[in-house]
């Protein structure tokens, strides 16, 4: 699966409406772009919409939309999309990390802490978890001072 090849990914996304390979490709593309720090919502949003067209319960579709809303600085939409992603996949810790980040951004540290505790119980090795956990601690310390 060559995620960096747009022709290949477009072919999968626009071919036979099979959800599983489409989800695999969109997760791959998002992770690939994330690792290069270059999220391209012009490419990703149509993928997310395609996933949601195939299934209204596509947690990954909602998560991509959340990531793009965050880039566009639309916090309410980001929160709504992350919540929808978690509704259909509550044990996905990547989505939960995104929710922690949102709660930190709006300075709701109690809810952020509850979310951190949940992730700690499910999978503390999740990407970026240590980062948001430390960030939360710092913010809480700052607030106490």
């Amino acid at each position, binding site marked *: 699966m060559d995620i960096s090849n747009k022709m290949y990914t477009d072919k999968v996304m626009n071919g036979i*409406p099979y959800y*599983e390979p489409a989800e695999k490709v969109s997760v791959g593309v998002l992770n690939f772009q994330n690792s290069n720090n270059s999220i391209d919502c012009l490419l990703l949003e149509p993928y997310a919409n395609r996933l949601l067209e195939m299934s209204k319960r596509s947690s990954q579709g909602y998560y991509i939309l959340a990531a793009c809303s965050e880039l566009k600085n639309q916090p309410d939409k980001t929160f709504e999309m992350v919540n929808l992603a978690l509704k259909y996949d509550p044990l996905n810790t990547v989505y939960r990390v995104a929710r922690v980040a949102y709660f930190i951004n709006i300075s709701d540290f109690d809810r952020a802490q509850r979310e951190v505790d949940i992730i700690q119980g*499910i*999978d503390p090795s*999740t990407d970026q978890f240590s980062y948001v956990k430390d960030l939360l601690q710092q913010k809480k310390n700052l607030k106490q001072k």
Partner: protein
Amino acid sequence: MFFAVTTSLNSPAMLFRSSLLAILPVLILIRHPLNFKNYKFISTIFLVILLTYIISWQINGQSLGNFLFGAYNRNIGILALLGLFLLTLESADYFSKFTKKLTKVFYATAIISIIYGTIQVLDQDPIPWEKGAGFGLTLGNPNFSSSLLGILSVIPLSYVLNWEKPYRYLHLYAYVALLVLILLSNSSQGFILYTFNLIFYTSLRFDLLHKFLEIKRRYKVWSILGILPIMLFLVLNKNFITYLNSTLQINHRLEHWKMGYRIWRDHVFFGVGIENISRFSGEYRSELIRSWGQYTHPDKIHNSLIDNFATGGVFVGFAWIVFIAYTFFVIGKLLKAINLHSRKMSIFVLISIWITYLVQTLFSTDHIYLMTIGMLAAGALIGIYTYEVKSLVRNNFAKIPN
């Protein structure tokens, strides 16, 4: 259908196979129209299943592609299911008269599987399949390929045990070759089915259950007492239980079953839609399933009974149970009248294939090819009952000997 691989030849995707299953029975139906009145009961069961899935599709807002063609790499959507049901009825019509043709087709499949499996084991397969833990024939997964070999192993076995048949040693060779391939597949499923078939078929063939019931009571007690300590030793032996669990992945299967139950509990009447489990498993998976992978969303329950309840609710679940019960009723009737049959060996073989297939679906996922084999066998048995046994009883033609 065995050779129905995808156009790119490197993926075990079942779409082509599924399309054949949807189209061929319709073409056969056009050429040889069926008299559905002969199969009112099972036609009604099939109709209930299909209609429930249509309702479920609407209720759950399932995508049309998923509904029609099924999940990726499974492809038992509504079209394939309709084809499968038609094929079952056509099998009842045709193979009830030409039963041996069906067992010969199955035997040919077993021989082709042996040849192709050997090529794969020797690493000489020109088709670059996605690599699994063992060879997958054209079924894409060593669990399914070994199950296929296990299910079909009864055919050479039937020839080996039939003393009058010529070339008995060639059949024995085929029977042993199937076992060797199953062992090389690294999958326990085929071995379980192979062993089950051996015990079940020989019991049928030599009427062992009757013979056991006829022996003196004290011998029965002694034989049971002899087995009991061995069973107790195995059950109480932690190493054996751990070995059994890791080989058969019992915990994994139980997790799938529990998830299926949770899905069904929230979708009691119409389920979540045909082949639509993976859209719901994210919401219903347990922490253990989550620990297998962040994006592990099972698309099957690993038990067709629970799978039917979860995807089609009580209507599909009970319809499937009624269908199974009906086939057992048919088998019971056929066995009662078995001595009147010149084709009793073929009937034994078909019974074994159907029941072994059912056993497979109780601990593993359904596969479109295995399903076709199982349903062809069930259809033929229903046909034989409908056309021969029923009329024998109706005409009071013969007193059926015990």
